């Protein structure tokens, strides 16, 4: 069950040229799964901005966001101590009961929700291999943080400036029994075409509400329509209509 609350910014700093990490303090009791998101109200913007939970504990939520437009630009200028109205605990999140040795595959700003997911998989005794795809070395973020979780991390860069040259799919040749992914649509299509197992994809869609009321974010699945914000953002491979 999602909640609305006022969260205090503890920190907000750049990880790369246009990717920022913000830590929010407040009630996190509504977060029940990795891959859920929060919906942030920004002064002077009509709609809220949906951002995945990258990590959380009893009192803080960490988010990582890329500046792509006016709202995220505005977020990047917020200072510690400022307060934000957020809806928290939105979406279904990843179901981690399905795997033993999964691949966790992230591309660009699809990576953040996979951090808490990986942490949780490890805590649960599963053995994830994490593949992180970036365009180039200077855009890499959270590599050390993932490393510190103690599982295998593979990085791909399109230009080969770090790790394997190529796409995340160029690093998928291992034994795995499942996969969890978040990232851009072209990456999803590539994974869909090579993946050997079942898995879960986390989708993005423009949202009116983020909590299931407006039908703004619907998508067709093999099991009928689903709302990305409420029945998603995570969909299982088998139900997705590409």
């Amino acid at each position, binding site marked *: *069950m*999602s909640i*609305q609350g006022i969260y205090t910014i503890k920190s907000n700093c750049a990880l790369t040229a246009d990717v920022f990490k913000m830590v929010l303090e407040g009630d996190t009791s509504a977060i029940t799964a990795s891959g859920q998101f929060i919906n942030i*109200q920004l002064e002077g*913007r*009509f*709609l*809220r901005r949906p951002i995945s939970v990258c990590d959380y504990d009893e009192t803080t939520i960490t988010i990582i966001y890329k500046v792509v437009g006016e709202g995220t630009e505005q977020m990047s200028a917020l200072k510690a101590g400022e307060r934000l109205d957020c*809806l928290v605990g939105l979406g279904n999140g990843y179901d981690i009961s399905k795997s033993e040795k999964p691949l966790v595959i992230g591309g660009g700003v699809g990576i953040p929700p996979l951090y808490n997911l990986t942490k949780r998989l490890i805590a649960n005794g599963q053995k994830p291999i994490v593949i992180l795809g970036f365009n180039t070395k200077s855009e890499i973020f959270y590599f050390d943080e993932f490393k510190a979780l103690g599982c295998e991390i593979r990085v791909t860069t399109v230009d080969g400036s770090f790790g394997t040259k190529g796409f995340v799919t160029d690093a998928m040749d291992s034994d795995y029994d499942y996969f969890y992914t978040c990232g851009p649509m072209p990456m999803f299509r590539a994974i869909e075409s090579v993946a050997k197992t079942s898995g879960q994809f986390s989708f993005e*869609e*423009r*949202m*009116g*509400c983020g*909590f*299931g*009321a*407006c*039908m*703004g*974010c*619907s*998508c*067709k699945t093999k099991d009928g*329509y689903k709302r990305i914000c*409420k029945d998603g953002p995570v969909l299982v491979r088998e139900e997705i209509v590409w």
Partner: protein
Amino acid sequence: MVDLSVNFCGMQMDNPVVPASGTFGFGKEFKDFYDINILGSFSFKGTTKDARFGNPTPRIAECKNGMINAVGLQNPGVESVIKNELPELKKFFHKKVIANVSGFSVEDYAYTCALLDKEEQVGILEVNVSCPNVHGGGMSFSTDPACAAEVTRAVKAVTTKPVIIKLSPNVTDIVVIAKACEEAGADGICLINTLLGMRIDTKRRTPVIANKMGGFSGDAVFPVAVRMVYQVSKACNIPVMGCGGVSSAADVIEMMMAGATAVQVGAANLVNPFACKEIIEALPAECERLGIERISDIIGVVD
């Protein structure tokens, strides 16, 4: 103590605040945020004869002080609404609900309304005529007085419940349409539905919305809504349900002074799920500030 109660088309309401169709689903998503029995009533998601997926996504675009939606009447169809949604709703909402009905032919409307007429939970039928008429070259029923009247008559013929017609603001003369509905037997008028708007993604050089254009609503449209509520309530003798850009108790009062007997809140619910609760809680103080003892006294008080 301020008396917030109003009587809209015979439906006694504790207060004039009504979430607008399409922004409140079938109530489920909001009952987790607050007890929705505090509402005057609410208008459920536009329901059609058959189930509809609606338009392709993206369906939502942000605007300064508002939003555009092109949901396209996604709903499970009237049979499913009656079989699944209404029984579910009954568990947590104990007041009469407003049934918002859409259609693409006069027969569609009559069919859907005839079924909903039998539902004891339904207090009022709200007929959204801002839909393209497939037999009329796709022109909306709401742009032609004769079409709007025809829908009104067809619906009135199949129900004994009060029927209100929900009008589109995208017309040259809203009064002509409203009067045609009144003459055809409408018990009330609801307005406004969304203004037709468009936004462009300048990076991609495409419309933001897959459907290109969509319905613009939210704070920005309030002055247009107030104007139309005023015009229609002065010209007609049936009550008006005001709607469009309402997000505060002050807005509710302004809309009522313009002529609305009850007031719907749309997009504001999406941005702030507690919008209606906060408005209802703020109304008594706002009334006191303005010397209003019974909110029903101010309906149409402006000359």
